[in-house]
């Protein structure tokens, strides 16, 4: 496509068509109230001097799926990882403002980050199973939190694998090394591993970026299934995916939360022209 042609595409009718393409007809939740599960207040995240996330204020509602979109390097991962304090691993990283989880300050002096991470599970961009058996991967979390009974562990493993739609594929080789699974299976294994801890929140950082369309569809189905029982936040570069799976969408640009709205509203009728430009593909 030449530059001229892409300019022409910006005509408003084409714009609307592009936007509507994102919306599946059966989308039920358009907008709605709910209890905020995670609340950010003037929340900034720094890497040393560099402010990667700038004064974000937002309520993330309980039991809804929230998608985070935005161009590369805009701070999506940084924001997501701050919710379960994975940023603690980076020595230069620090925050200002407040981030509340269930009304409690995530970065409070007396916050137990281990307990927090138990409640806020995370699935990473690249599947990262442990170099252990499938069973031991899923049982890792429950064992940590005191479940040692073999039968009970087996129950948890089966339940988690079923939830992650992986049970049928691996039920006969639970003792095999998880690294022998395909990429898509590994990613679903990671979801199952997170679910086994029974978290309240599920953070997904581009969970399908390394997967083929079929495996992606499975993960998306999974999100649909888990929706309503977990608060889910998903970072994605795929606009269709955001519109397919999420109830709310947050658009970040250079560390600033530009727009946070019900997904249908944000895609059909964005308030901010920057959002509009981004979702119509003016920049990526």
């Amino acid at each position, binding site marked *: 496509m030449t530059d001229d042609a892409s300019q022409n595409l910006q005509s408003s009718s084409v714009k609307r068509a592009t936007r509507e393409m994102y919306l599946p007809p059966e989308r039920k939740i358009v907008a709605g109230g709910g209890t905020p599960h995670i609340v950010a207040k003037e929340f900034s995240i720094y890497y040393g001097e560099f402010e990667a996330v700038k004064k974000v204020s937002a309520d993330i509602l309980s039991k809804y799926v929230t998608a985070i979109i935005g161009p590369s390097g805009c701070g999506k991962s940084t924001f997501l990882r701050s919710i379960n304090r*994975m940023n603690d691993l980076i020595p230069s990283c620090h925050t200002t403002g407040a981030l509340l989880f269930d009304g409690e300050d995530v970065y409070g002096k007396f916050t137990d980050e281990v307990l927090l*991470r138990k409640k806020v599970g995370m699935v990473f961009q690249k599947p990262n199973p*442990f170099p252990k058996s499938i069973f031991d991967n899923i049982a890792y979390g429950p064992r940590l939190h005191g479940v040692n009974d073999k039968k009970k562990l087996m129950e948890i493993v089966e339940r988690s694998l079923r939830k992650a739609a992986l049970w049928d594929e691996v039920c006969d080789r639970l003792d095999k090394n998880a690294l022998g699974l395909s990429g898509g299976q590994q990613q679903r294994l990671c979801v199952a591993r997170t679910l086994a801890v029974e978290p309240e929140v599920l953070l997904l950082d581009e969970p399908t970026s390394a997967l083929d369309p079929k495996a992606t569809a499975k993960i998306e189905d999974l999100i649909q299934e888990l929706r309503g029982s977990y608060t889910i936040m998903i970072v994605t570069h795929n606009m269709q995916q955001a519109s397919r799976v999420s109830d709310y969408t947050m658009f970040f640009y250079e560390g600033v939360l530009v727009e946070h709205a019900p997904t249908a509203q944000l895609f059909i009728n964005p308030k901010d022209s920057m959002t509009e430009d981004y979702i119509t593909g003016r920049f990526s």
Partner: protein
Amino acid sequence: MNLGTRKILDRSFTALGIGSIVIMALALMIVIVPIVTNGIGALFFTGTVEHRKMLFHEFKRGDSQKLTEESASAERYRAKVYEMLSGFEAELETMAPEKKREYQPKYTEVRTALQALLGPLPGDPEPMLTRFKYGQTRWEKAEAKLHDLLYEVKWDNSDPNVMSKEYFVSRAISFEGTSLVKLFPYVENNISKMLLPEFTFYWGFITDSSVDSHFFGGIWPEIQGTFFLAVGAMLFAFPLGVIAAVYFTEYARPGFFNSMLRSANSTLAGVPSIVFGMFGLAFFINTLKVSESKSVIAGALTLAIMILPTIIRAAEEAILAVPKTYREASLSLGSTKWNTIVTVILPAALPGILTGGVISLGRAAGETAPIIFTAAVSVGSAIGLADVFSSPTPALSWNIYNLASEHEAAAQIRHVQYGMALALVSIVLLLNLSAIVLRARISKKLKG
């Protein structure tokens, strides 16, 4: 740079690389091949009846009936020699005084050579040292001694401009006209009947203790001592090293103190081992008084200090090589830092940590200098486990040096020295091999 030059450069570098590897392999061969061939000779050799006698008397091993028969048969042939000797002694008495004075020293030389060859002669007092109680136990040595009996060494220093040259004169000639002249061809022709050479596999070389400072017997005390020292060193250094590595990689905050510790560690790795030996003596024995004087424990501690930096380095590298994603995954599941280290990081780093450990174990087994002042003695029996706190021990590394240079009869027991070298090389090789196998197995398990 054009394609042609690039190709030429590539090729010449390949040639250079292959060349250096070949040179290295050759150098290794030059060292290893004599050790192996000579060392094997300590286990497999042509042994004489004297060897079997020695085994029977010193170690109560062997077929007593067969030995009696063999001794009797050998004795029949030796009896003739003894007869000739007494015959000549009688003849000596009847000689004119100046003749007698001429023959007496020559005859003593013959007797000495025969003693070395066959063991004590009739009428000799019972020797004090075990080494003189038996004749030559190894056939190739017997042949050398036979040569000593048959020929006298003379030195040709007629030309003052060249170094004097060795030449041999038949002893038979100097006894021309006496009854003893028949002795030389008789011994030469019947030597194998007097010594009964036979192919011998002396497995006891590995499991026997030495008799009369390595003249006979095996090297078990040395092997066991080496084992105690190396394993003892590992018992101290391995846990300590892994803990230090975990501290450096997971807990230490970057800063002056930390970088000082790290450079101290690197410096320690470069300190010559003899310095560790001195340190061990000064610190563990004189200051801490872990033992009265040399002991296994003092040596093990000294070796532990010596290998600690290597273990720390290897473990650190192995831990740093564990993908960050494992740590993230574990933490995100609500694991504590400590738990993550124990259940995820260390298992994943295990192959690297173990390799470092086993290589250090090999180094501890092979080092001489650190144990000279702290643990090693030249000759001793195998010590019990309970004695490690109080007794020193012989060890392979030290005794190889000792037999090569300090031993009063080093030249006569070269085979023992080579046998020790072979044992040490085999132990170290075996350890390294097991490290490779272990590493491969664990890696395979980790990779699925």
